[in-house]
Every structure is written in structure tokens, then in C-alpha cells.
């Protein structure tokens, strides 16, 4: 007999577990199903969280190695990779447990197994051996099954030579020479991490710019810093084949300078992600997807089948955990009969390269394309006392303004702690702030966010600490 539930959430990543908790808070009898055997999904277990645990550690190492100018002298700095990996695992475990406790405290029932639709309401959950664990008759369903990395026909993941980001994060030995195919967010974050641990890094990016889609000026700063780390970056290039030779890997690539061969030890493929919907049997529920397999949803996160919702990576780009969580809350609230909608205006994003890049709203080019009369205010961190004192002067804050109304359209920050600086600007955009509002708000001295206030002043043509253009 199928067990009736108010809501079944499939996938316990940042979209699914957040949706389940909110739904339970609103009084829905909620079951959360995940096939992975632990909560938190890709983000917590194989993505954002472990990569940050490693990246921040590598940043510390890198900073110490370059602190001679500040008078830091030491000998025998060594990274114990095994211990580092244990530490990564411990961070994940603590967060796993935290989510478990939150589910329990809110009355969310957790079931580990693989869910599939029998029809639009009935869902069967099976274990690894395909034995049926339970069948549900769900009044509402939220699909939050996420995405997984793409590979290439010529570079299939093998867990040994050709790695996905998940496997790269678990490497207990930094490769001597790593080649990254795809110079986007994931590829550069991980590539930078390894480079700071002493790996020789080569990046092959198909498009003409690393971090495609990011403000070109910001991408340029990251490219410069990669070069300082000794990385070899090839844009407009395509890795075509590989072979093993004398225990190493020879990767052939087409570059603007002609064909090249790179002899490396490991290849990391980070060329985007595709929806994880295998095994769900969406067709049994009649849920429609686009040509790439992403589930189509409306502003209430409903699919074409009214009682079935979808949130997070499985509904398409951008693949951001915080987007998934907000969508999960919207879906849960709508499922509980509340008036909610995905109506945000600011979807910030943070990239943990060196320096970090964080953006929200429109960049210059996008604003111009939308027909705004664009004015920009830009302030380099090198002009800010705090950045100098901390020895991190790379980068800038750029404020994009509608010249007609002085409305804040977007902000691009590249530089120290950019990921932490961007949230203020997300609030500003959601509140419909004008650039004047930001310029008039006192920012404490000496701090990095002063650069935001200064960039706002610059957009208005009256900056104090840089020469106005």
C-alpha cells in the first residue's frame, strides 16, 4: 500500500533539504528522499564546502610562502595532504550531522534510497539492490535531484587519469602537473588550489576568455594572477585526444598557435553540468523538460504538472546552491498554499579564485544590451588602506549605474574577500537602491567595503580617493 504524504522531496541537496524543512515548518507531512546515503547533496559533500575547506587552506599556505616582505620567516613549511583530506571530511561530517538534526527537529522524515515516479502521484523508493523500500502517494512532490559533471567523448571520467571535480577534491596527493579542460569557475577554483600546493597547472579553455560570462576586466585580473602562480593558460583552445606514455599523459590540443602537446599527470574536466534525472522516470509523471533535459518550471517553481515542483540545478543554470535553496523555499511555500514566487532581482555569485570574483546584477555589457544608459564607477583595491595593510591589493570594485535614474544595476568585485563583500550589494539591488544611497551610507574605516562606497561616489563623478574620470 502506498503511504500517503503531503509532500515528498526528492534530493537532499541545498534545494531539497531546505524545501523539506520549510514545508514541515508550514505543517506539511514531509518525507525527504536521497539516494546518496547522506544529506547535503553535491554542494555539501562534493562541491562548494569541501572545495572551500581545501582552497582556504591552500590560500593560507600561499600567503605564508609570500609573507617574507612582511617579515614572516620560517623554515620547513609542509602540507600533510592526508591530514588535510581528513580535515575536509570532518567539515563535511559536521555539516551532514547538522542537517540531520535540523530535519529531525522540524519533523522531516528522511529516507535514503532512489525515488522514481510510477505515476504523477505515486513514487517508489528502492535501495542500492533495487529492493523496494517504500511506496508513497504524494499530494505534492518537489524534485531537487541536482546535476552532475559533463565529460567529453575523448575524455571520459575514469577516476584515475581523467577526473571530475568530485574526484579531484579527494586526491590525497597533489599531482605534479595538472591539465584542466574548461577554464570556468570550477576548473579555475580547483586549478588554483593545486597550483598553490605546488602543482604545475595548465588550463585549456575553449572560449576566448577564462571565466566566460564574467566581466572581462575581472577575468583579466584572475588571468594575471594565474600567470603569477606559474599557470599556463590557453584560451580559444580545444583538447582533442590523450594517450598514456611512460606513466604520464600526453594531451593533444588545438591552440591559436597551432597544435600543441602537453605532458601531464592528471586531467581535470570541468566543462559544465547536466541534469540528474536518470531513474526518476519523469515520463511516468508527465513532467516536461527542455532539449537539454532540464525541468521547465514557472515562477512558483511548478512544473507543467501542477502538484509537482522542481528546484535547483535540475531546472537549469545558473548552478548555484543559494539559488536552489531560495527556489526550495518558494516551492515549499507554494506547496503549502502560501503566496510565494521566484521574483528576486539580485542573484549574487561568488567565485573562489585568487583573487575572488563576486558579482550581482548586470555588468556593463549586459546593462548596455538591455538599453540602459550605463555609467560605471570603478575603484581599485590598491587605493584602499585596508587592502594595502593586508597585502592584498589586486582587483577592484565596479559599480554599474543607470545614468538616467542613478539606479544601481549591478556590481562586480574582484579582490580580497569579494565573496563576503557582495551581499551588501545584493540587498541594495533588492531594495531598489540608487547609487546615491550607497555613496551616502557610511562605511567603517579601514575596511574593504569602503571600496564599494568609493566606487558609488566614482559613478556619481565625485570619488575622493581616486581621480574621477
Amino acid at each position: 500500500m502506498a503511504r500517503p504524504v503531503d509532500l515528498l522531496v526528492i534530493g537532499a541537496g541545498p534545494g531539497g533539504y531546505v524545501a523539506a524543512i520549510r514545508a514541515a515548518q508550514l505543517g506539511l507531512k514531509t518525507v525527504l528522499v536521497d539516494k546518496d546515503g547522506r544529506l547535503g547533496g553535491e554542494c555539501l559533500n562534493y562541491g562548494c564546502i569541501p572545495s572551500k575547506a581545501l582552497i582556504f587552506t591552500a590560500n593560507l599556505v600561499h600567503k605564508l610562502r609570500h609573507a617574507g616582505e612582511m617579515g614572516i620567516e620560517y623554515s620547513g613549511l609542509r602540507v600533510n595532504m592526508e591530514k588535510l583530506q581528513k580535515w575536509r571530511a570532518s567539515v563535511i561530517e559536521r555539516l551532514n550531522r547538522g542537517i540531520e538534526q535540523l530535519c529531525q527537529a522540524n519533523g522531516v522524515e528522511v529516507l535514503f534510497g532512489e525515488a522514481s515516479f510510477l505515476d504523477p502521484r505515486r513514487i517508489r523508493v528502492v535501495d542500492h539492490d533495487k529492493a523496494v523500500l517504500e511506496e508513497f502517494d504524494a499530494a505534492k512532490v518537489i524534485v531537487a535531484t541536482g546535476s552532475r559533471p559533463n565529460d567529453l567523448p575523448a575524455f571520459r571520467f575514469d577516476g584515475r587519469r581523467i577526473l571530475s571535480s568530485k574526484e579531484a577534491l579527494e586526491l590525497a596527493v597533489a599531482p605534479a602537473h595538472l591539465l584542466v579542460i574548461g577554464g570556468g569557475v570550477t576548473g579555475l577554483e580547483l586549478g588554483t588550489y593545486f597550483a598553490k600546493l605546488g602543482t604545475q597547472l595548465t588550463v585549456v579553455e575553449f572560449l576566448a576568455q577564462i571565466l566566460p560570462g564574467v566581466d572581462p576586466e575581472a577575468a583579466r585580473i584572475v588571468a594575471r594572477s594565474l600567470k603569477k602562480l606559474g599557470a599556463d593558460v590557453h584560451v580559444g583552445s580545444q583538447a582533442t585526444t590523450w594517450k598514456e606514455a611512460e606513466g604520464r599523459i600526453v594531451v593533444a590540443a588545438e591552440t591559436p598557435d597551432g597544435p600543441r602537446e602537453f605532458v601531464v599527470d592528471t586531467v581535470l574536466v570541468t566543462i559544465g553540468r547536466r541534469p540528474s534525472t536518470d531513474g526518476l522516470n519523469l515520463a511516468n509523471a508527465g513532467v516536461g523538460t527542455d532539449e537539454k533535459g532540464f525541468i521547465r518550471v514557472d515562477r512558483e517553481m511548478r512544473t507543467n504538472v501542477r502538484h509537482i515542483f522542481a528546484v535547483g540545478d535540475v531546472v537549469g543554470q545558473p548552478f548555484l546552491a543559494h539559488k536552489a535553496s531560495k527556489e526550495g523555499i518558494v516551492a515549499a511555500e507554494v506547496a503549502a498554499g502560501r503566496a510565494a514566487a521566484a521574483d528576486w532581482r539580485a542573484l549574487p555569485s561568488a567565485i573562489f579564485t585568487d583573487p575572488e570574483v563576486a558579482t550581482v546584477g548586470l555588468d556593463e555589457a549586459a546593462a548596455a544590451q538591455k538599453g540602459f544608459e550605463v555609467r560605471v564607477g570603478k575603484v581599485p583595491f590598491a587605493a584602499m588602506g585596508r587592502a594595502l595593510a593586508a597585502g592584498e591589493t589586486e582587483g577592484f570594485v565596479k559599480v554599474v549605474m543607470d545614468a538616467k535614474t542613478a539606479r544601481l544595476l549591478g556590481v562586480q568585485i574582484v579582490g580580497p574577500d569579494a565573496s563576503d563583500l557582495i551581499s551588501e550589494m545584493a540587498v541594495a539591488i533588492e531594495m531598489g537602491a540608487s547609487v546615491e544611497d550607497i555613496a551616502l551610507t557610511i562605511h567603517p574605516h579601514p575596511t574593504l567595503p569602503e571600496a564599494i562606497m568609493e566606487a558609488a561616489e566614482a559613478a556619481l563623478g565625485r570619488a575622493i580617493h581616486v581621480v574621477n574620470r
Partner: protein
Amino acid sequence: MPKEFKLPDIGEGVHEGEITKWLVKEGDPIKEEQLFVEVMTDKVTVQLPSPYTGTVLRILAKEGELVRVGSPIIVVGEEGDTLPASPAPPSRQEPAAPQEPTAPEAPRTAPTPPPTGEVLATPAVRRLARELSVDLAAVRGTGPRGRITEDDVHSVGRRSAAMPASQEVVPVPPAPTGRPEERIPIHGIRRRIAEKMHKSTTTAAHFTYVEEVDMTHLVHLRDKLKGRAEKKGVRLTYLPFIVRAVVAALKDHPTLNATLDDERQELVVKRYYHIGIATATDAGLIVPVIHDADRRDLNGLAAEIERLADAARTNRLTPQDISGGTFTITSLGALGGILATPIINWPEVAIVGIHRIEKRPVVHGEQVVVRDMMYLTCSFDHRAIDGHIGAAFVESLKEFLEHPALLFVEA
């Protein structure tokens, strides 16, 4: 490059206009200076000339739609440009969510028309609007730069709840009755009339005072002057005399040449005389204004009245022509009738209604004589004008009309 044309500023205090009629359609060729759209503001209907020569690529507002000044209404391309395959978003649609720069494979979107009027409201206000089923695009924000506040949403929410068919909510389509009937949309000038009349009758404390005037002398005088005026190309009706008499009477009773500022609770007495003449047009009643009526001679008044009447009939009134009135005259007798009670042209405080002049038996001394008689019905806003003031004004007006020579000695 296709060019957009935005609804221009068409007069003082005009923030929006209603598109009443498109004179071109998508795909039509269009020439510079060609009139291409009819727009009605809360004051006047105007036809706008095209600033460009080319082809109409897109029309961005529907007939009947209210468009804010500065919003694009039409896209004109080069001659020979063809229509784009996909329709443009309607003018008040929210721009698409900002593209996320980190998305590695995100394609750049094709150029779209400039975003227009994305509503300015905080996330909490947007949620409140959803909960109250209030469409933010239809809410006028009272905060800085038009920001919509919680109070704005609450007040629309209350009104919608009380009056389900109000402008802010989409009314449920009426069920067909099965009987022969036609539903005529109330828009354009009709809507403005409806709003203004409702405002006046629910705001002003109307009272109406009726008087009878012996027009015999004025009829003789007008008969004498008519021929002379005609030689100068001027059609002399009774109206210029009445305007002149009204101005003279207003000078005796200045508090009637005024508007009431409800917000500040002040009577704004005008030291200039802009006299509105209520005029029937096919679209409905409008009130062109004779500016500085006190500074015009009789023929000058007649010529101006004729110009305004022509312009009203042919939709060529300028915003200037229908703004700034201080007092209104309305003719009520064209078809007959004895008396009508005029509605004040709010926020003015008084209106004079004139009726037909007809021969009636009148007692003069001990005799019954035939005289040219006319009724005057004057409505006043009793909040500002007490009965005896209104009566004194009408008696003064009566004196000027019965002894028109006074109109020419006192000036």
C-alpha cells in the same frame, strides 16, 4: 538601427497618457512629421507626429493602455526593415532576471528594448503584494523616485477588496446574458469625464441658484454688432457677451474666481481670468479655456471661442488650450429644456449654466410685455461659497447682462 519613440512630456503635470488610437500599424511605412498615434491625457487628446522616417517595426502599447511619460511606445526602423520574428515584450513587462555572469555556457541574450518602469519595491513589499493579489505594475508608488511602499500596497489592496472592478485588478469577464446588448469600454475622454464628475460630486458641496435674466437689450446689441463683426470675419454669438459679463461679475465677487486646494485647505483666489467653456465633442465633454478673457475685446473673445471650438471638434487642442481654467461656463439650452443643475468643474468653486433665450410674457409695471428671457443656473461649492455670496454674484451677473452698456463702460 531601429529607433524608439518614447511618450513625450505633453503638458504641465501630465505623467501618463492613454493610447486611444493607433493611426499606423506594424509594418507600415512612416514619414517624419506624420501623425501616428492619438494619445489622451487627463486633459486633452493629441495626435503625435513621428520624429523619424522609416518603417513601423513594433507598437509597444495597446489602444486603451495607460503609458507613463518616457515609456517607449513605438519602434521605427530604417525604410525596408522587416518585422522581427519574435514580438517585443509589452512596455510594462518586468525585464528578464539579470543574467548570471558565472554561468559558463550562458548565451548572451539578444538586444531587447530598454526596460521600462520595473517596479521599485522591496522584497517584503513584493511579497505583501502577492499575498493581497495586488499587481504592483498598477500601483503608483508614493516613496522616493516612485518607490512602492507597504502602505501603497495596503491601500490598493483595500480598494480592490471593496471595489472588485476597480482599475487595479483585472475584473472577471462578465457572463454573457444572452440578450442583445453591447459592452462599450469606458476609456479615453469618457473615463476622464467619469473620474472628474465623480470627484466633483463626491468632493464639492453643491448647491444651485436659479435666476431669470431679461436679455432684450443684449439681443438688440448683438443684432447690431453682428454685421460689423461678420465683415471682419468674426461670427458673433451671445457667448462673448456672456464671458465678458461673467468676468465683470467675478471682479465684483473675486472669491468665486478660485479653486479649492483640498490638501492644504486653502481657497486659491485667482487674479487672472481664464474662462472655460464646456464643449460637446464626439468623444465627450471637454472644457477649452479662454486665457486672459479680461484682456480680450468682444471680437477677440469671439475669434478665440471659435478657434477653440474648431480645435475641440478636430482633436487639435493643445494641452495649453485646456488647462489653467479659473471658472467655467456651460451652455445647457441648445436642445430645449427649462433648467439643468450644472456640476462644478472641480477644483473650481462655481459654474454658470446658461439656457436658451426665448420670448416670454413678463410683467413690466402694470403691463404684460414680451421680452427676450433666459434662465441662469449657477452651482457653487458651499464649502467655500455661502448662499448669499453666490446669490450676490448671480445678481451682479444679471445686472451686466440686462444692461450690457455697463460691460463697455466699466472695463
